[in-house]
Protein backbone atom coordinates (compact mmCIF):
# COMPACT_ATOMS: atom_id res chain seq x y z
CA UNK A 1 0.00 0.00 0.00
CA UNK A 2 1.12 3.58 -0.64
CA UNK A 3 0.80 6.63 1.58
CA UNK A 4 -2.19 5.90 3.76
CA UNK A 5 -4.72 8.68 4.18
CA UNK A 6 -5.48 10.23 7.54
CA UNK A 7 -8.33 8.51 9.27
CA UNK A 8 -10.92 11.23 9.02
CA UNK A 9 -14.60 10.66 9.58
CA UNK A 10 -15.27 10.60 5.84
CA UNK A 11 -12.54 8.02 5.23
CA UNK A 12 -13.93 5.82 7.99
CA UNK A 13 -17.46 6.10 6.67
CA UNK A 14 -16.37 5.02 3.21
CA UNK A 15 -14.25 2.18 4.56
CA UNK A 16 -17.20 0.96 6.62
CA UNK A 17 -19.48 0.93 3.59
CA UNK A 18 -16.91 -0.88 1.46
CA UNK A 19 -16.23 -3.36 4.24
CA UNK A 20 -19.89 -4.36 4.53
CA UNK A 21 -19.38 -6.64 1.58
CA UNK A 22 -15.77 -6.52 0.38
CA UNK A 23 -16.37 -8.89 -2.51
CA UNK A 24 -18.94 -6.64 -4.14
CA UNK A 25 -17.78 -3.66 -6.20
CA UNK A 26 -19.86 -0.51 -5.79
CA UNK A 27 -20.06 2.70 -7.76
CA UNK A 28 -19.32 6.13 -6.33
CA UNK A 29 -22.87 7.37 -5.94
CA UNK A 30 -23.95 4.18 -4.18
CA UNK A 31 -21.05 4.48 -1.75
CA UNK A 32 -21.81 8.15 -1.18
CA UNK A 33 -25.47 7.57 -0.46
CA UNK A 34 -24.72 4.65 1.86
CA UNK A 35 -22.06 6.62 3.72
CA UNK A 36 -24.18 9.76 3.87
CA UNK A 37 -21.63 11.84 2.00
CA UNK A 38 -22.10 14.45 -0.69
CA UNK A 39 -20.10 14.32 -3.89
CA UNK A 40 -17.64 16.97 -2.78
CA UNK A 41 -16.53 14.84 0.16
CA UNK A 42 -16.79 11.49 -1.58
CA UNK A 43 -14.67 11.67 -4.72
CA UNK A 44 -11.54 13.24 -3.20
CA UNK A 45 -11.51 10.53 -0.51
CA UNK A 46 -12.04 7.78 -3.07
CA UNK A 47 -9.17 9.10 -5.18
CA UNK A 48 -6.99 9.29 -2.08
CA UNK A 49 -7.84 5.69 -1.13
CA UNK A 50 -7.14 4.60 -4.67
CA UNK A 51 -3.73 6.30 -4.60
CA UNK A 52 -2.98 4.52 -1.33
CA UNK A 53 -3.92 1.23 -3.05
CA UNK A 54 -6.52 0.50 -0.40
CA UNK A 55 -9.21 0.52 -3.07
CA UNK A 56 -9.11 -0.57 -6.68
CA UNK A 57 -11.41 0.89 -9.27
CA UNK A 58 -12.40 -0.46 -12.65
CA UNK A 59 -14.87 0.48 -15.33
CA UNK A 60 -17.96 -1.64 -15.41
CA UNK A 61 -17.57 -4.44 -17.93
CA UNK A 62 -20.63 -3.71 -20.05
CA UNK A 63 -21.23 -2.43 -23.52
CA UNK A 64 -23.03 0.95 -23.17
CA UNK A 65 -24.86 0.46 -26.45
CA UNK A 66 -26.23 -2.89 -25.28
CA UNK A 67 -27.36 -1.84 -21.81
CA UNK A 68 -28.48 1.58 -23.00
CA UNK A 69 -26.58 3.56 -20.39
CA UNK A 70 -22.99 4.70 -19.82
CA UNK A 71 -20.71 2.42 -17.84
CA UNK A 72 -20.04 2.99 -14.17
CA UNK A 73 -16.78 3.21 -12.27
CA UNK A 74 -16.74 0.50 -9.61
CA UNK A 75 -14.76 0.55 -6.38
CA UNK A 76 -13.73 -2.41 -4.29
CA UNK A 77 -11.40 -2.97 -1.36
CA UNK A 78 -8.37 -5.04 -2.31
CA UNK A 79 -7.11 -7.75 0.11
CA UNK A 80 -4.62 -5.40 1.78
CA UNK A 81 -7.33 -2.75 1.89
CA UNK A 82 -9.69 -5.10 3.72
CA UNK A 83 -7.06 -5.70 6.40
CA UNK A 84 -6.34 -1.99 6.64
CA UNK A 85 -10.01 -1.06 6.84
CA UNK A 86 -10.68 -3.61 9.57
CA UNK A 87 -7.70 -2.41 11.57
CA UNK A 88 -8.63 1.24 11.14
CA UNK A 89 -12.24 0.71 12.20
CA UNK A 90 -11.20 -1.46 15.15
CA UNK A 91 -8.68 1.16 16.24
CA UNK A 92 -11.22 3.93 16.11
CA UNK A 93 -13.80 1.81 17.91
CA UNK A 94 -11.24 1.14 20.61
CA UNK A 95 -10.59 4.87 20.98
CA UNK A 96 -14.28 5.66 21.12
CA UNK A 97 -15.16 2.98 23.67
CA UNK A 98 -16.08 4.17 27.20
CA UNK A 99 -13.21 5.79 29.07
CA UNK A 100 -13.47 3.52 32.12
CA UNK A 101 -12.20 0.51 30.12
CA UNK A 102 -8.85 2.07 29.25
CA UNK A 103 -8.11 5.07 31.43
CA UNK A 104 -10.11 4.74 34.62
CA UNK A 105 -8.80 7.84 36.29
CA UNK A 106 -9.06 10.19 33.33
CA UNK A 107 -12.11 12.34 32.77
CA UNK A 108 -14.01 11.11 35.78
CA UNK A 109 -14.88 13.08 38.89
CA UNK A 110 -13.35 11.36 41.91
CA UNK A 111 -15.95 9.78 44.18
CA UNK A 112 -18.59 9.54 41.46
CA UNK A 113 -19.38 6.19 39.92
CA UNK A 114 -18.49 5.46 36.34
CA UNK A 115 -21.37 4.88 33.98
CA UNK A 116 -22.86 1.50 34.84
CA UNK A 117 -20.06 0.66 37.29
CA UNK A 118 -19.56 0.58 41.02
CA UNK A 119 -18.64 3.76 42.95
CA UNK A 120 -14.91 4.50 42.82
Amino acid sequence: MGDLPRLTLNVLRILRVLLENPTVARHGLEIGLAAGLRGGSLYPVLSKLEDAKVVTSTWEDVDPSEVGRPRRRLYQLNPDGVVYARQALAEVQQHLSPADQHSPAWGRTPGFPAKGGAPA
Partner: protein
Amino acid sequence: MGPHPRVPGQRGCSRVKGWLIAGLATLGALLVGMVKADLEDEKVCRWLARTLVYRTTRHLPADERDRWREELIRDLLDLQGRVAPLLWAFSVYLQAGRWGRMRGMPSRWEVLVARTRAAWQRLRSLPQARVRARAQQLHPASIQAQAQTAHVKVVGFDAQLVASGTTRSGGSASLMSRPGAWFI
Protein backbone atom coordinates in the same frame (compact mmCIF):
# COMPACT_ATOMS: atom_id res chain seq x y z
CA MET B 1 -16.41 69.01 14.25
CA GLY B 2 -20.02 68.03 14.48
CA PRO B 3 -22.23 66.43 11.87
CA HIS B 4 -22.99 68.29 8.65
CA PRO B 5 -26.28 70.19 8.69
CA ARG B 6 -29.05 68.75 6.54
CA VAL B 7 -29.49 70.43 3.19
CA PRO B 8 -33.04 71.71 3.02
CA GLY B 9 -35.09 70.55 0.03
CA GLN B 10 -38.60 69.60 -1.05
CA ARG B 11 -38.35 65.86 -0.27
CA GLY B 12 -35.97 65.55 -3.23
CA CYS B 13 -33.76 62.94 -1.65
CA SER B 14 -36.57 60.75 -0.41
CA ARG B 15 -38.28 60.81 -3.80
CA VAL B 16 -35.11 59.68 -5.59
CA LYS B 17 -34.57 57.03 -2.97
CA GLY B 18 -38.12 55.76 -3.45
CA TRP B 19 -37.72 55.47 -7.23
CA LEU B 20 -34.39 53.74 -6.78
CA ILE B 21 -35.83 51.20 -4.35
CA ALA B 22 -38.82 50.56 -6.61
CA GLY B 23 -36.55 50.09 -9.64
CA LEU B 24 -34.22 47.72 -7.84
CA ALA B 25 -37.15 45.74 -6.44
CA THR B 26 -38.65 45.36 -9.93
CA LEU B 27 -35.31 44.28 -11.37
CA GLY B 28 -34.81 41.82 -8.52
CA ALA B 29 -38.28 40.36 -8.99
CA LEU B 30 -37.65 39.93 -12.71
CA LEU B 31 -34.31 38.22 -12.09
CA VAL B 32 -35.73 35.93 -9.41
CA GLY B 33 -38.62 35.03 -11.73
CA MET B 34 -36.26 34.21 -14.57
CA VAL B 35 -33.96 32.11 -12.39
CA LYS B 36 -36.93 30.32 -10.84
CA ALA B 37 -38.42 29.56 -14.24
CA ASP B 38 -35.05 28.25 -15.42
CA LEU B 39 -34.54 26.07 -12.37
CA GLU B 40 -38.00 24.57 -12.78
CA ASP B 41 -36.90 23.23 -16.13
CA GLU B 42 -35.15 19.89 -15.64
CA LYS B 43 -33.09 20.28 -18.80
CA VAL B 44 -31.61 23.53 -17.55
CA CYS B 45 -30.76 21.94 -14.20
CA ARG B 46 -29.09 18.99 -15.91
CA TRP B 47 -27.14 21.33 -18.18
CA LEU B 48 -26.04 23.39 -15.19
CA ALA B 49 -24.97 20.27 -13.30
CA ARG B 50 -22.95 19.06 -16.29
CA THR B 51 -21.32 22.48 -16.62
CA LEU B 52 -20.35 22.37 -12.97
CA VAL B 53 -18.83 18.92 -13.47
CA TYR B 54 -16.81 20.18 -16.45
CA ARG B 55 -15.60 23.14 -14.44
CA THR B 56 -14.69 20.85 -11.56
CA THR B 57 -12.57 18.59 -13.70
CA ARG B 58 -10.62 21.58 -14.97
CA HIS B 59 -9.05 21.75 -11.52
CA LEU B 60 -7.69 18.21 -11.85
CA PRO B 61 -4.52 17.08 -13.65
CA ALA B 62 -5.02 16.80 -17.41
CA ASP B 63 -4.48 13.04 -17.55
CA GLU B 64 -7.23 12.37 -15.01
CA ARG B 65 -9.89 14.75 -16.31
CA ASP B 66 -11.61 12.42 -18.77
CA ARG B 67 -11.90 9.61 -16.27
CA TRP B 68 -13.44 11.79 -13.54
CA ARG B 69 -15.68 13.64 -15.98
CA GLU B 70 -17.12 10.39 -17.26
CA GLU B 71 -17.60 9.03 -13.76
CA LEU B 72 -19.18 12.17 -12.34
CA ILE B 73 -21.56 12.59 -15.26
CA ARG B 74 -22.49 8.92 -15.00
CA ASP B 75 -23.30 9.34 -11.31
CA LEU B 76 -25.35 12.45 -12.07
CA LEU B 77 -27.52 10.39 -14.41
CA ASP B 78 -28.50 8.12 -11.52
CA LEU B 79 -29.84 11.01 -9.46
CA GLN B 80 -33.50 11.67 -10.03
CA GLY B 81 -35.26 15.01 -10.04
CA ARG B 82 -34.17 18.55 -10.74
CA VAL B 83 -32.43 19.70 -7.61
CA ALA B 84 -30.59 16.56 -6.47
CA PRO B 85 -28.14 16.41 -9.40
CA LEU B 86 -27.60 20.14 -9.20
CA LEU B 87 -26.79 19.99 -5.49
CA TRP B 88 -24.55 16.98 -6.03
CA ALA B 89 -22.62 18.74 -8.80
CA PHE B 90 -22.44 21.93 -6.79
CA SER B 91 -21.00 20.14 -3.77
CA VAL B 92 -18.34 18.57 -6.01
CA TYR B 93 -17.60 21.94 -7.56
CA LEU B 94 -17.17 23.58 -4.15
CA GLN B 95 -14.46 21.07 -3.25
CA ALA B 96 -12.79 21.18 -6.67
CA GLY B 97 -9.93 23.45 -5.61
CA ARG B 98 -9.03 21.32 -2.60
CA TRP B 99 -9.33 18.16 -4.68
CA GLY B 100 -7.09 19.60 -7.39
CA ARG B 101 -4.45 20.64 -4.86
CA MET B 102 -4.60 17.15 -3.40
CA ARG B 103 -3.85 15.76 -6.87
CA GLY B 104 -0.84 18.06 -7.25
CA MET B 105 -2.36 21.00 -9.10
CA PRO B 106 -1.47 24.55 -8.03
CA SER B 107 -4.13 26.59 -6.31
CA ARG B 108 -5.72 29.62 -7.96
CA TRP B 109 -3.77 31.85 -5.62
CA GLU B 110 -0.45 30.25 -6.60
CA VAL B 111 -1.29 30.65 -10.29
CA LEU B 112 -2.18 34.30 -9.75
CA VAL B 113 1.03 34.97 -7.81
CA ALA B 114 3.18 33.24 -10.46
CA ARG B 115 1.53 35.17 -13.30
CA THR B 116 1.89 38.48 -11.49
CA ARG B 117 5.54 37.76 -10.74
CA ALA B 118 6.23 36.86 -14.38
CA ALA B 119 4.54 40.04 -15.61
CA TRP B 120 6.52 42.10 -13.14
CA GLN B 121 9.82 40.52 -14.22
CA ARG B 122 8.95 41.21 -17.86
CA LEU B 123 8.15 44.80 -17.02
CA ARG B 124 11.38 45.22 -15.08
CA SER B 125 13.50 43.76 -17.87
CA LEU B 126 12.14 46.24 -20.45
CA PRO B 127 14.61 49.11 -19.65
CA GLN B 128 17.47 46.59 -19.48
CA ALA B 129 16.54 45.28 -22.91
CA ARG B 130 16.51 48.84 -24.23
CA VAL B 131 19.97 49.50 -22.76
CA ARG B 132 21.26 46.26 -24.24
CA ALA B 133 19.96 47.19 -27.67
CA ARG B 134 21.52 50.67 -27.43
CA ALA B 135 24.86 49.20 -26.30
CA GLN B 136 24.80 46.82 -29.21
CA GLN B 137 24.16 49.72 -31.55
CA LEU B 138 27.11 51.70 -30.15
CA HIS B 139 29.53 48.78 -30.11
CA PRO B 140 32.75 49.43 -32.19
CA ALA B 141 32.18 46.27 -34.19
CA SER B 142 28.74 47.41 -35.23
CA ILE B 143 30.04 50.92 -36.08
CA GLN B 144 32.73 49.31 -38.23
CA ALA B 145 30.09 47.25 -40.03
CA GLN B 146 27.96 50.35 -40.64
CA ALA B 147 31.00 52.23 -41.97
CA GLN B 148 31.86 49.40 -44.35
CA THR B 149 28.34 49.38 -45.69
CA ALA B 150 28.47 53.12 -46.22
CA HIS B 151 31.84 52.79 -47.98
CA VAL B 152 30.44 50.27 -50.41
CA LYS B 153 27.52 52.58 -51.16
CA VAL B 154 29.80 55.61 -51.68
CA VAL B 155 32.17 53.74 -53.98
CA GLY B 156 29.21 52.61 -56.01
CA PHE B 157 27.87 56.15 -56.20
CA ASP B 158 31.31 57.47 -57.22
CA ALA B 159 31.51 54.94 -60.00
CA GLN B 160 28.12 56.08 -61.24
CA LEU B 161 29.31 59.70 -61.26
CA VAL B 162 32.44 58.83 -63.25
CA ALA B 163 30.39 56.84 -65.68
CA SER B 164 27.98 59.74 -66.20
CA GLY B 165 30.93 62.12 -66.97
CA THR B 166 30.84 64.30 -63.91
CA THR B 167 34.31 65.52 -62.77
CA ARG B 168 36.03 63.50 -60.09
CA SER B 169 36.57 66.54 -57.92
CA GLY B 170 32.95 67.61 -58.16
CA GLY B 171 31.78 64.11 -57.34
CA SER B 172 34.06 63.84 -54.41
CA ALA B 173 33.08 67.27 -53.17
CA SER B 174 29.46 66.29 -53.22
CA LEU B 175 30.29 63.00 -51.54
CA MET B 176 32.17 64.69 -48.73
CA SER B 177 28.94 66.19 -47.52
CA ARG B 178 27.34 62.72 -47.21
CA PRO B 179 27.59 60.79 -43.98
CA GLY B 180 30.29 58.14 -44.09
CA ALA B 181 32.10 59.75 -46.99
CA TRP B 182 35.14 60.52 -44.83
CA PHE B 183 35.96 56.85 -45.01
CA ILE B 184 37.26 57.14 -48.63
